[in-house]
């Protein structure tokens, strides 16, 4: 994967998001204190938000170029998004949610309903209403729904933050399996050092809208956490 972010300037309330970076790792951790602009950056990449200035290119395809007034609409970007609460469609069943974005390719890839539900172990949930799922089940369904749209890039915005420590430990392996089984590049926002180390190759640190550090996750992040990066250590969250 090669995601080019250039000349990104987006005024946010107390500061301006200013990003120039190229992401090449399979899984990149996007970390930083709360309110640093992480979700805004994801929204720009997904095309959910527009900036006065931005150039975004994914694997050679220009998605946003404000200089040439080019903007690929969100629906054509093929960028999956798993927000914090999962944002499942409450009026649909689990199956309805999963099928919403299912792309049937001419050459069936790894993203079939059977394969994804098997890897994430959500087969038994298919007929259920979304309101009857636990937090961990919701996040697995949200992840499966995003995967089934055959994304070229997956954005995960603190997907485990609403879960308790035990549940996190159970869901994390699913994310690792999703990574190894489907090979979709990911940008993973988290406040948990352990998650970042378990999943990510590289890390970028965002602070008040600017990248203050970028490099291999193993070098930037230590299991005990880095409070200045908004990262908590491996101890159970309270």
């Amino acid at each position, binding site marked *: 994967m090669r995601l080019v972010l250039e000349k990104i300037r987006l005024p946010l309330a107390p500061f301006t998001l200013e990003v120039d970076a190229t992401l090449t790792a399979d899984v990149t951790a996007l970390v930083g204190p709360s309110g640093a602009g992480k979700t805004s950056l994801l929204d720009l990449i997904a095309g959910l938000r527009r900036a006065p200035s931005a150039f975004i290119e994914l694997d050679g395809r220009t998605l946003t170029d404000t200089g040439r007034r080019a903007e690929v609409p969100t*629906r054509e970007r093929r960028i999956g998004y798993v927000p914090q609460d999962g*944002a499942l469609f409450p009026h649909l069943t689990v199956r309805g949610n999963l099928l919403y*974005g299912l792309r049937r390719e001419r050459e069936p890839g790894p993203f079939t309903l059977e394969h994804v539900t098997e890897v994430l172990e959500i087969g038994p949930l298919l007929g259920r209403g979304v309101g009857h799922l636990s937090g961990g089940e919701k996040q697995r369904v949200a992840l499966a729904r995003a995967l089934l749209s055959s994304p070229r890039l997956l954005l995960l915005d603190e997907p485990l933050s609403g879960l308790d420590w035990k549940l996190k430990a159970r869901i994390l392996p699913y994310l690792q399996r999703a990574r190894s089984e489907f090979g979709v590049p990911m940008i993973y926002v988290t406040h948990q050092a352990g998650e970042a180390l378990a999943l990510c190759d590289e890390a970028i640190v965002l602070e008040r809208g600017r990248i203050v550090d970028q490099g291999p996750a193993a070098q930037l992040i230590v299991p005990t956490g880095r409070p200045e990066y908004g990262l908590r250590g491996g101890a159970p969250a309270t």
Partner: protein
Amino acid sequence: MSAAEWQIVGFSVGVAALATLLILPPGLGLAWLLARRRWRGKALAETLVALPLVMPPVATGLILLKLLGRRGPAGRFLHDLNLDVVFTWRGVVTAMAVMSFPLLVRGARVAFEEVDPRLEQIARTLGAGDARVFLTITLPLALRGILGGTLLAFARALGEFGATILVAGNIPGRTSTISLAIYQRVQLGQDAEAFRLLAVAAAIAFLAVWTSEWFLRRGARR
């Protein structure tokens, strides 16, 4: 109840339902625009839409009469098309539609605003275009609120008096609605007939508001 009274009840329910159906497409469209888009003239549109709620209905009726009368700017054109509005059933429908439009728009707007925009955004990331997002996410999630607003608009249309009497008069068998007929019966001292119509009006209104409340409650719970 006499055959004439049943005719009045049937006619009233029919034109009120027609008026409600007619305002649904523009009402939902406007409600969505007010809830989801920023545009020039939005504040003005909001005010104009709310006007019939706060203006005396008779005054609204007078405006409609001047617009739609045979010498009015719209009325002349409609007369050429053989679609006279004033003092016909079309006048009743028009008065009802104008008077209940604000209620529908308000109800639907609140319903649209209560749909989490994040869900619509996620649907876009899954490959859905504007129409699909509206039809499969926004509309179903707002449906109960919209149904509640629609029933309120229908009830308001059914009770419409002030604008209707100016635009459509009270022609027995042609433009006489329950409200107009009750007024006329009371004027003529036919209290028993007036009370029978009153009972029917109260029953229909009760049912409409009760169902509407039920929808709105169910919508809020979700």
